[in-house]
């Protein structure tokens, strides 16, 4: 596994915008998992103010979601004539014109071919923030202004549970057949009627060999007293509780709520013992590079992107397994240009386009055939297991089980309590 670092493609355009620590972070090839997550949180509280206030009269959605799902495909015909498309995605999560291997970004190609004018924004700083910002509108039955948003599994599950997503008209997305088998039927959307994966990634064991003094192959390292105060975890229950469940030898894809609450207890112990330095957002990677962490849960693409500059960083698939998560495209309820959104999904499920995207973002491509198409771009990327995982890798990867609202609230409260809030 000697990843070849592209052409600094993800850092070039960002460098000019940043200073001090942030520049450092960007130069280290930080991924789209925003280093601005925290400011996002701050902004969300401000932007969320009105949402909080109008929360006075939020209607329940449980009873209306079924009708939305059933009636949505009919409503798209009206939007057929529009030539606009509004996409909201995570930062640094799509190829740009200047860095494209063939000189044209995939967005440009899509626009030229379809005649659709795309407004692409990088407004998803965190799942929670995006939800907090638009919940009031969605709850009141108003459009968000976006035709596609990209959210991680658990938040996509919440959107579906609340009936905040439009059903995808599969007839408009013939390339959906290219979706890899492993992702075809997640528990929150078994037929993929509402969501299409954008990219996936692994949450595995990331460590600094300078500090560990050798290879690690078990999540036990997280509670090894040797690394006290030098251990990190990533926030959000699918990552934090998922990893602890693996460490306890449990299967996060089938674990009971009690198992999860048991994992939250272990999290509380890790925090109170001082074993855990901090529960991080995206900034865990800076802390690992700076030498403040010896061992941490980490996202595959981040480590891959930083190994050339920091050869002491390692990403392990521990013997207990790794978490695999997916960021999903979905069409928010009331989207004005639903048919165009489906065209966009179809376009990104062409193997050649998916390969171009994967070449840039370095996360796991959900499109079958992208691996073969990658050969035309760069041979060295074809056998990269972090982009195109093999069967053995996938069999060791666990998707966090979808929770219902009561379970999710209970678990969120337990995790909050464990982490001092």
């Amino acid at each position, binding site marked *: 596994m000697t990843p070849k670092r592209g052409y600094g493609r993800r850092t070039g355009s960002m460098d000019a915008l940043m200073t001090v620590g942030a520049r450092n972070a960007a130069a280290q090839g930080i991924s789209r998992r925003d280093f601005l997550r925290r400011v996002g949180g*701050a902004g969300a509280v401000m932007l969320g103010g009105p949402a909080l206030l109008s929360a006075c009269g939020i209607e329940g959605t449980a009873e209306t979601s079924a009708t939305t799902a059933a009636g949505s495909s009919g409503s798209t015909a009206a939007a057929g004539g529009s030539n606009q498309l509004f996409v909201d995605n995570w930062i640094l999560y799509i190829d740009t014109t200047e860095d494209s291997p063939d000189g044209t970004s995939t967005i440009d190609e899509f626009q030229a071919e379809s005649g659709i004018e795309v407004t692409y924004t990088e407004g998803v700083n965190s799942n929670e923030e995006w939800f*907090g910002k638009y919940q009031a509108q969605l709850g009141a039955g108003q459009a968000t202004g976006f035709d596609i948003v990209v959210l991680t599994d658990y938040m996509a599950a919440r959107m579906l549970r609340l009936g905040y997503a439009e059903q995808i008209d599969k007839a408009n997305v013939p390339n959906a057949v290219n979706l890899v088998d492993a992702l075809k039927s997640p528990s929150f959307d078994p037929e993929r009627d509402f969501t299409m994966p954008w990219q996936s990634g692994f949450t595995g064991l990331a460590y600094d060999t300078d500090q560990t003094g050798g290879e690690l192959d078990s999540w036990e390292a997280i509670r090894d007293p040797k690394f006290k105060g030098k251990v990190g975890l990533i926030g959000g229950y699918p990552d934090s509780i998922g990893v602890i469940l693996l460490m306890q030898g449990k299967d996060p894809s089938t674990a009971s709520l009690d198992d999860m609450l048991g994992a939250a207890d272990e999290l509380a112990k890790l925090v109170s013992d001082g074993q855990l330095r901090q529960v991080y957002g995206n900034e865990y990677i800076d802390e690992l590079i700076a030498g403040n962490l010896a061992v941490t849960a980490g996202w595959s693409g981040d480590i891959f992107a930083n190994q050339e500059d920091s050869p002491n960083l390692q990403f392990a698939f521990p013997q207990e397994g790794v978490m695999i998560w997916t960021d999903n495209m979905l069409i928010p309820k009331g989207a004005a240009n639903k048919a165009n959104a489906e065209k966009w999904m179809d376009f990104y499920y062409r193997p050649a386009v998916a390969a171009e995207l994967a070449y840039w973002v370095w996360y796991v491509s959900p499109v079958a055939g992208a691996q073969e198409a990658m050969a035309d771009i760069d041979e060295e990327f074809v056998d990269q297991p972090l982009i195109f995982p093999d069967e053995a890798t996938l069999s060791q990867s666990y998707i966090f089980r979808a929770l219902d609202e009561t379970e999710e609230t209970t678990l969120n409260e337990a995790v909050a309590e464990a982490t001092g809030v």
Partner: protein
Amino acid sequence: MTATADRPARTEAAERAERRRRRVPYLLLAPGLLWLLVFYVIPMFQLGTTSLQEGTLETGYRFTGNVESWTSVFTTYLPQLRNSLLFAFGATAIGLLVAYPLAYAIAFYTGRWKGLFLSLLLVPLLVPFLLRTLAWRVILADQGVIVSTLQTLGILPDATGRLLSTGWAVLAGLIYNYLAFMTLPIYVALDKIEPRLLEAANDLYANPWTAFRKVTLPLSMPGVISGTLLTFIPAAGDYVNVDLLGNRTWTMMGNVIQSKFLVIVDYPAAAAISLTLMAIVVTMVVVYVRRVGTEELLQ
């Protein structure tokens, strides 16, 4: 004839003018009042009603007069409340100790370079809040200059000692982030002091320390009050510094509110905790301003 016909007409005109004049203050106040109503009174009212609701996103929220959210603040979140007040007090007190001499020096000793020093004070504010805070991660890193110096001096234990991800780093971040807001009002108050008052004190045989205590300090108190409030209030509600520089054993009320609102999606609890924190801070501010306003603190 003509005179009697004219007179009531003139009076009417005068009355109209008088009425218009009376309306002027209200017209001038209208934009401000409207702003207050729309962006303060109504939101506060809605925050209040939200805090008494019950429900979930799926079932909807209904006003039930449920006060459970309110009691939870004092049963569950006392440590976080204590942290918020401790950090805010610490940041205000240490900030004042740093800011007062700084403002004094700029006001009285920088001469024609005053503008330059003031801009130096303000330049960091041009860098976004988040990046300014992130910079402290570099300054306080385990292998950074400060930590290794403290380790060499034996103040921090060698192997396990650290500053980043501790309460000390949170305190440092809070002091730094609000230093300019503390310094500027004090500078403005000091800068306005008439030098002849100090000469008069000197003529009356006051030594420099007495002159400072009897003249300069009382005249600068309005600046000190503004500065301390501009530091204490936002510091008490801060959560970013804990997230970026602290760790989960040092969480503040702001972190609780953020988690309730964004992660747990418990809007009633978030509203109740916000209002409680607001009430506590307002009470402390009122007591403080009244005491300092009567100059009791100076006696």
